C-alpha cells in the first residue's frame, strides 16, 4: 500500500478541522477542531517519518502531543472563565471588541 494515502487523509482531516473552526460556534467544539488539525499534522509527521526512515518526525509528533496537552489546559481554563462570566460558551457571544 502506498504510504502517501495517509497524507491525503491527513490533509482532509486538517481541512475539516479548519472548516470546523470557522463554522462551529461552541468554543469547546471549535477547540476540538483545532485539536483535530493538530492530530492531522501529527499523522503527517508519522507518515513522513516512515517515508523518510528516521524517527525525528515521531519525536516531533510526541512533542506536539505534549504541547497540545498544555494548550488544552490553558484553553479550557480560558473557556471556562468566559463561560462563568457570560453563561455562554458560544464564541459569537464574545464580540465586544470590534472595528
Amino acid at each position: 500500500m502506498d504510504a502517501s494515502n495517509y497524507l491525503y487523509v491527513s490533509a482532509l482531516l486538517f481541512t475539516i478541522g479548519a472548516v470546523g473552526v470557522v463554522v462551529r460556534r461552541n468554543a469547546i467544539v471549535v477547540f476540538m477542531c483545532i485539536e483535530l488539525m493538530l492530530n492531522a499534522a501529527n499523522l503527517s509527521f508519522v507518515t513522513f517519518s516512515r517515508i523518510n526512515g528516521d524517527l525525528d518526525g515521531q519525536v516531533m509528533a510526541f512533542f506536539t502531543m505534549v504541547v497540545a496537552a498544555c494548550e488544552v489546559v490553558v484553553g479550557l481554563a480560558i473557556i471556562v472563565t468566559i463561560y462563568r462570566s457570560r453563561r455562554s460558551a458560544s464564541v459569537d457571544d464574545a464580540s465586544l471588541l470590534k472595528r
Partner: protein
Amino acid sequence: MTFTAPVLSYALLSPMLILLGGALIGVLVEAFVSKALRPAVQLTLTLGSILLSFMQLWRIRGEQSLTAAMGSVVFDGPAALLQGSILIIAFISVFLIADTENFTALAAALPGSDEERHALQSGNQVTEVYPLTLFAVSGMLLFPVANDLITLFVALEMLSLPLYLMAGLSRRRRLASQESALKYFLLGAFSSAFFLFGAAYLYGFSSSISFSGIREAIVGGGGNDVLLLIGIAFLSIGLLFKVGAVPFHAWSPDVYQGAPTPVTAFMAAATKVAAFGAMLRIYYTVFANAQWSWTPVLSGIAIVTMLLGSLVAIAQRDVKRMLAYSSIAHAGFLLSGVIALNKAGLDATIFYLLAYGIATVGAFAVVTLVRDSSGEVTDLNRWRGLGKRSPFAATTFALFLLAFAGIPMTSGFIGKFSIFSAAYESGAKGVVIAGVLSSAIAAFFYIRVIVLMFFTDATEDGTSVEIPSILTRATVIIAAVITVALGVYPAPLLNFITDLAIFIR
C-alpha cells in the same frame, strides 16, 4: 545500542536558564510567601532575573555556536542582539506590570461579584503574572535562537501560552479582557496548527527537522518543490500570525484593546522582536535559497499589511486599537527588512525592532496614565486637551507618535530609513513605494492624535491623569530618552549591530 550523554553549553543557554529559574522560584514564591510580601518579592525577583540574564548575555555576546544544545539552539550575533532587545523591552515592561491598577485582583472571581469586590478591597493581586512574564520572556529568547522545528514550535507555544493567559487578567472591562484572551488563544492555536502542518511538510521534504538539514535539502534540490512550498507557506502563516501581518492580523486589534495595557505593551513590543527574530533566522538562513518562491508573496503581504494597517488606523476611535493598527503597519515595514535578504536588511530590521519596541512600550505606558475614576480612558475623544492637563503624558506620547511616524530626530526615522534603503537595495522598489505611501497615510492619524491632545479643548467630563507611579514614569522616561537618543545619535548602536549581526549556519 549505546547512549551518549548530551552535552549542553550552559554558558550560552544561561540567559534562558536564568529566566526559567527565576520563573520557577516565582512559582514557589506564590506557594510559600505571604500575600503581603509577594508583590515586592516577585517584582524584585523578576527584574533581578532579567537583569542577570542580560548581564550574562552581555558577557557571551561575542560567542558563536551551532551546538549550544545538541544543535537545538544556535547562538550568534543576531541571537545576542535579539535576545538583548527582548530583555530590555521586557525590563521596562515589567515596570508597567508592577502597577497594581492594571490587573484583576482575582481572576477566578466573576466580574461584578461580591467576591471580586472583596478581593479588590483586600488589595489582592494576581502576582502570578510575574512568573508568567518570565516564562513568556524565556520563550521569546528561545524563539529566535531555535535551530530545529521542534524547538521552534516549543518556543512558539512557550511565549504564547503565558500571553494568552495574561491577556485575560485585566482589572477593568474584564469581559472584554476575557474575550481577548479567548480570541487570542483560539486564533493562536489555529495558526499553530498551520505552523505545525507546515513543519510536517518541511520535514517531509527534507527528511530533517533541523534548520541545517532543511537548508541543505533546499540547496541540494531533489524532487520537485511542492512539499517545500507547502511547508514554507504554512510555516509562514504561523510566523506571520505572530507578527500581525495581513490577512493574519485580525486578532491583534481586539487583543491589544482587551488585554491589560502593560500586557499589550509587552506583547506588542517583545513578541514582535521574537517573532521577527525567528523569521529573520528562518528566511535568511533556511529559506534563503528558495528566495524566488517566497519574496514575491511576502512582498505582497508586506504591501497589503502596510496599507491596510495605516488606512484602518485612520478610522479608529480607541487609542489602543489605533496603536494596534499602527503596529500592523509597522509589521509591514519590518517585513520589508525580511524581504531585503541582505546584510543591510538584517541590521536595519534588528535596529528597527529595538527602536519600535521601546517606543511602543513607552506609548502604551502613557496610555496607562490616562485614567478617570473607572480606569483607563482609551476613547480618543476623551484625550482632548490632554496637553493642557498633563503636559508630561501628552508630550511623551506625541514623541512616541512622531517616532512611529518616522519624523527625523527620532529613532523611528533612522529605522525607517535603514529598512527602506535595505529593501530598495535588494530591488524591492514596490515595497519601498508602498512603505512611503503608507507612511504618509500613517502620519495623518498620528498627527490627528497630536491635534487632539494639544490643539483641542477638553470636553466636559475631564479625564483626570493620575500621578504616575514612579515605575511607570521611569518606563516612559527611559523609552523617551532612548527614542530620542537613537534618533539623534544612533551611530554606536548601528555600529554595534553591524559588527555583530552575522548569522552562522
